[in-house]
């Protein structure tokens, strides 16, 4: 983390911002298949580790992909999650719930070879049934790769800002 970072140029910052907006639009309109096909690389590692509440003096290392995680998916596993949503038998999404994303603090670093480290904050608002409302905030650490006419994500680390999830589940893409 301490290596010197090269901030990506303004044009790239802008392109990545637009990329994230398009990604959010796909999620908010239920176009999960399109998202997976067009924005996710086949070597994706999609990861939401579990962070315990530990004392500052605790020297145990941070979680690795071999440890417990809420998401720890490869492409095929993400594909299964997408597929489930199209079966027509996910009763809790019928009638469908609402989801809204707010992505901010986007910061892209050029790591060479058409790849970028991108940090962002995400606020997710879900509204279900009559009165169910939940809000989650996450830090997001992406590795994006330039493809023909845009970007694909090949690492996504999601840092959930809650030890105890105040929601029925975290089955949403982020």
């Amino acid at each position, binding site marked *: 983390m301490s290596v010197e970072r090269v901030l990506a140029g303004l044009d790239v910052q802008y392109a990545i911002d637009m990329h994230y907006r398009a990604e959010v639009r796909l999620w908010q309109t239920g176009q999960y298949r399109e998202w997976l096909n067009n924005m996710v690389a086949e070597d994706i590692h999609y990861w939401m580790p579990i962070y315990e509440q530990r004392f500052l003096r605790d020297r145990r290392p941070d979680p690795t992909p071999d440890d*417990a995680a809420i998401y720890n998916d490869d492409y095929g596993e993400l594909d299964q999650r997408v597929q489930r949503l199209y079966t027509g038998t996910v009763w809790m999404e019928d009638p469908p719930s609402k989801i809204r994303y707010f992505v901010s603090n986007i910061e892209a670093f050029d790591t060479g070879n058409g790849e970028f480290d991108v940090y962002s904050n995400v606020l997710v608002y879900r509204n279900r049934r009559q009165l169910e409302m939940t809000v989650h905030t996450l830090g997001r650490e992406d590795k994006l790769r330039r493809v023909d006419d845009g970007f694909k994500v090949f690492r996504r680390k999601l840092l959930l800002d809650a*030890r105890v999830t105040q929601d029925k589940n975290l089955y949403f893409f982020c």
Partner: protein
Amino acid sequence: MTGNPSLVDTVESTQSREIFWDKDVYNLELERIFGRSWLFLGHESLLPKPGDFITTYMAEDKVILSHQPDGSFRAFINSCTHRGNQICHADSGNAKAFVCNYHGWVYGQDGSLVDVPLESRCYHGQLDKARLGAKHVRVETYKGFIFGCGDADAPSLEEYLGEFCWYLDTIWEGAGGGLELLGPPMKSILACNWKVPTENFVGDGYHVGWTHAGALHGIGGELAGLAGNRAEMPFEDLGLQFTTRHGHGFGVIDNAAPAIHVKRDGWAKYLADTRGEVLRKFGPERERLYVGHWNCSIFPSCSFLYGTNTFKVWHPRGPHEIEVWTYTMVPRDADRETKSIIQREASRSFGTAGTLESDDGENMSSATFVNRGNITRDGRMDSSMGVGFEGPHPVYPGIVGSSFIGETSHRGFYRFWKELLDAPNWDAVKANDSVWDSVFLNRDYWTAKLDAAE
């Protein structure tokens, strides 16, 4: 609500909807169910070294479970005996002592009060530290699983598990290595009564094909045929259901242990390699269970799926909310990669973002909250599936139901829930030890069925 015969009707196999809603029922549960039962605290594998600790709950009580220098485990209430502040705010760690944030009282690994700031000058030598240790609860372990109990008169953990040990040994000991738990747990809040998930895990094979239809389509494997309840399934030949003296119970789907796991080579090989030894040690009836998939609850509020290997604790937070803690069970002597893949698969299906977990939460919440309605609440729920198609079995202890789709273990769970809720103390419960299963009326079900098969 004490003694209200309408809460659970063991003749009609119904329960009042108040059991999911009423505050008085809940308060009585805290005192008589959670206050008297052995509650899951942890597993030795979660705190392997002396000084290791984890913080957890016993119902709504916060407790510290601590590994002692002599290798034993102690648990004490996570509240300072001075002015009551919470002693420890970390999930886990290793500590020589626990220091209260408020005025700095220091507790040892065993919960005793070992140091008090300014003691000699400000307490003038009048403070009896020996009497001010953190409040202890009983701690006992079974095959590495650690339980705590707040009732000095409760039976031992082994007696409390009772004949259920016969079943647990099949997997908690297995071929010899037994199981361990991998943490840290996922934690989430679910707005439901604690008994809804407990009864779901103790014996609800019925919901699998319908609630989880979407996920089962995607996963494929042995259980895909259940999806949508459409298949012509020979339900009487696919598994069994069990309930025991103290409400512990489970359902088993034959030959389906790793069914929910997509990447399963290591786990399937482990089972194949070890089933012979299980057969030798425990006999064919338990070898059958060893390679089956279990949905299980240990009374009152701890559940697991063996095969899928998710392990859950439903910590109650009032009558209408729980905190769900999810660990993964793995064979202690499996190789690292196999353990890691089991953990990934278990989390992907039954973790906080699990493909099947996400189906269940909705039902559990709505089955609780519809009872807000006064007319609704003045009604009953039915758990009569398979009444009479169950009974004592020549080999399997407890009461055995004919199929994994049935409600034998629901009935057994609520039978004991009511018994413990009504009982003035554990002596009154023990007095029923020889007659507890008389509510299961068909005493000859299995002898007749097994004779006919011969």
